[in-house]
């Protein structure tokens, strides 16, 4: 206490000056508009800078925790994105409906499941190789489908393997129609993007628009009617201008094709025997 009193006594002059000057400046900034505004602006700038430093310091300290939270949120969001992407993919290819519909349509067919062991999508005439052959009941001219739609037609078969001519082959010619109409044409692939093919010979009086579904017409014994092929993305005029040519976004992604099914036609035996009879007569 004595020390404090001695200190105050020693520096009373300076403390009194600080007190009186402080009171004067308080009056100056409090009761004078101009000086008050200058003080307010400067004080704002200073306090703003100090608060900014404080905020930077605090946010630096809590960086580790925030990092963990962000990582967790990231994982959740990645999962969500993956799920949404799959959902979108399925929705675009209408696969859920397609699968159900396929099951209905193929109820009378027996199917031989197979795996794609050889594939190409970058040639003008692409072929698939599957690991089922004649011993499994696979014969040429049989249709091949997958979970999302039509794949192609068996081209050649050996005992254990078969070559399939997919839609991505310049010689492929599958009869298809636009769902909801009776207009049909032949689906051909003209090279280029492996997800797009052309459906030609659609008459010009047909009322068509983008987004319409293309399915098998059933005009061959290979595929039953109604199997999902793809969706119309563009309606163009044919080269000769006499019909429409539809650009079809194929539902089957041939680049990622793994599991397929060969449709063993129930009337295949009858058709085979008829053909044999004709050849014998020749």
């Amino acid at each position, binding site marked *: 206490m004595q020390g404090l009193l001695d200190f105050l006594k020693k520096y009373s*002059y300076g403390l009194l000056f600080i007190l*009186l000057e402080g009171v*004067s*400046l308080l*009056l100056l900034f409090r009761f*004078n508009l101009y000086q008050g505004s200058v003080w307010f602006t400067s004080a704002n700038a200073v306090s703003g800078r100090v608060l900014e430093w404080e905020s930077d310091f605090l946010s630096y300290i809590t960086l580790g925790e925030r990092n963990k939270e962000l990582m967790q949120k990231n994982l959740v969001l990645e999962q969500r994105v993956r799920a949404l992407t799959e959902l979108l993919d399925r929705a675009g290819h209408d696969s859920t409906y397609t699968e159900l519909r396929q099951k209905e349509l193929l109820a009378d067919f027996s199917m031989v499941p197979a795996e794609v062991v050889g594939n190409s999508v970058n040639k003008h005439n692409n072929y698939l190789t599957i690991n089922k052959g004649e011993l499994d009941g696979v014969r040429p001219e049989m249709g091949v489908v997958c979970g999302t739609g039509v794949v192609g037609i068996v081209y050649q078969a050996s005992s254990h393997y078969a070559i399939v001519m997919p839609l991505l082959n310049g010689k492929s010619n599958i009869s298809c129609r636009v769902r909801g109409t009776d207009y049909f044409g032949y689906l051909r692939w003209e090279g280029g993007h492996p997800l797009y093919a052309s459906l030609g010979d659609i008459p010009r009086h047909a009322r068509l628009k983008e987004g319409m579904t293309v399915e098998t017409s059933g005009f061959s014994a290979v595929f039953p009617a109604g199997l999902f092929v793809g969706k119309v993305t563009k309606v163009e005029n044919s080269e000769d201008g006499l019909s429409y040519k539809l650009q079809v976004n194929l539902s089957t992604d041939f680049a990622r094709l793994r599991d397929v099914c060969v449709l063993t036609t129930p009337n295949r035996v009858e058709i085979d025997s008829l053909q044999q009879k004709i050849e014998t007569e020749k």
Partner: protein
Amino acid sequence: MMQSFFSRLLWAFILLVFQGLVFNHIHFFGYATPVIYVYILCLQPLNTSRWAWLLWGFAVGLGSDFFSETPGLGAASMTLTALCAPQLLRLFTPKDCLEDMVPGYRTLGGWKYIGYVTLLVLLQEASVMMLEVFSFFSALDMLYTYLGSSALSIVLILALERMRGNK
């Protein structure tokens, strides 16, 4: 001592009244306004305690603020001037002078007294200007005001001292 105190008090009152009623309305060429209440610091004897200097400066400055409606401006500048006044006085005071010497023409000598008053007034004007303007926006105008007001104040204070000294 009490007589001296009341005498200074009377001087302070007179200076403030004249400052508020007369000199605050003088603006030579739009620049120069005399400030004569600084003279109260020139009336403090050599042996005035330092806290008394401060209190005198604060009180007179606050008094001038009442007249000029600038609360705190005069008080802040006069307190600062009062802080430096004892040191300035000692610069001009001869070593063999009396302790209760009151600065004046006779006690300090003509030129020394003029020097003392000049420094006090310059310090006072500088602090008033800085607190009033808070920027160097129009530096030339500020310089004219500063020099003009200072010159006028010095002349008036010297005239007052001459009058007081002749009594």
